[in-house]
């Protein structure tokens, strides 16, 4: 049985109702209807995941925005669910990663039960399948014009110290970086950002001049830092951010943790429903 968790957060009531009606219609059409529950102040996501577990549900479907999915993921607590995501947000980064760009595509993928086992990464108590940012990459940059270049270059530089795989320490002054499990701009041909390789990719953007920054703006916007000469690329299973203390680690611009913090890939993987246009 499928268990659908519908999250109206950040959606106007009218838009949410429309999406709910569209979703119900598609589920009936593809014959994958199940129990639909709506997130409410007294029935939050952790309660609903517990409820699904009590009912013996095998497929849990997060319907909402990327935060909805991440909250469901954070509350699985090792229970054996197959997870699916139906995006209500047209700008969802996770939907691009999973190849379920809209409600219709996501429902079709769910009906087709195209399931992949992907790596699960963890920072402190938060699990994630996408990526973390720090420094200028936390700015969620959508475009780089001359004004943005000046702003980015004038950002304070980070004296980074991190320990990799309990094996070596890395020190440098940088503008920012990414810790990637998977991302919305990769392809299956690349070795970076593959969420099935049991590794995290740690990309560090060194200090760049204004000209260089402008020259490589597309790579910075899309997070493909490995295309920029001089970018450090490290594959690892465990990453401990040591310094500077208090430096924020964000996910899509939202602060998840602060240095010192440890990010690691988990032994167990996650069964997840994906579309054919997934990025891995």
């Amino acid at each position, binding site marked *: 049985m499928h268990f659908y968790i519908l999250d109206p957060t950040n959606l106007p009531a009218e838009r949410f109702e429309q999406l709910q009606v569209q979703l119900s219609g598609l589920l009936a059409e593809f014959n994958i209807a199940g129990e639909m529950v709506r997130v409410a102040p007294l029935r939050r996501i952790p309660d609903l995941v517990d409820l699904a577990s009590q009912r013996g549900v095998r497929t849990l479907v997060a319907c909402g925005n990327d935060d909805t999915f991440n909250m469901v993921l954070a509350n699985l607590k090792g229970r054996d669910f197959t997870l699916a995501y139906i995006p209500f947000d047209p700008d969802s980064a996770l939907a691009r990663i999973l190849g379920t760009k809209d409600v219709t595509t996501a429902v079709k993928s769910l009906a087709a039960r195209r399931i992949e086992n992907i790596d699960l990464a963890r920072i402190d108590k938060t699990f994630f399948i996408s990526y973390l940012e720090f420094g200028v990459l936390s700015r969620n940059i959508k475009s780089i014009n001359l004004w943005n270049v000046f702003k980015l270059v004038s950002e304070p530089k980070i004296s980074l110290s991190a320990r990799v795989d309990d094996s070596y320490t890395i020190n440098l002054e940088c503008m920012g970086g990414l810790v990637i499990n998977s991302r919305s701009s990769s392809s299956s041909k690349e070795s970076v950002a593959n969420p099935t390789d049991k590794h995290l990719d740690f990309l560090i953007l060194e200090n760049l001049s204004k000209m260089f920054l402008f020259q490589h703006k597309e790579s910075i916007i899309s997070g493909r830092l490995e295309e920029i000469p001089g970018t450090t*690329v490290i594959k690892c299973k465990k990453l401990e951010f040591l310094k500077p203390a208090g430096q924020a680690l964000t996910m899509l611009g939202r602060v998840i943790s602060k240095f010192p913090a440890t990010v690691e890939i988990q032994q167990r993987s996650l069964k997840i429903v994906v579309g054919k246009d997934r990025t891995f």
Partner: protein
Amino acid sequence: MENFETSFGSVTETVVGPSVKIQGDLNSEGNIRIQGHVHGNVKTSESVFIEETAKITADIQAGNVICAGEITGNMKVAGKMIMQSPSHITGNLECGILQVEDGAVFNGEVSMGNQKKVQAEVEEE
């Protein structure tokens, strides 16, 4: 001058940028490109490319090595070792094939012909 990708093909897995300082044991399952400083040990069964800006104080065990930077340490290379200009290498070397280009400086002892033994050591672990 030989290029890393044309010499050894596959994609570089680890890149150490020019302003990076690494202290400890850098182990990788794939190719490594070093532009910064490494103090410790470097180990991979694949290839290592040490660029002009790199300064390495470490023992290196690798499948192949192309060096244009500075190394102080002993090296065990199962396959090919290429010393490019302006590399400056101080330490002993065991390798299968050695190529030294004009302008490269090497101070140390070279031992060749024990390819199987070196390969087994590099692939160990």
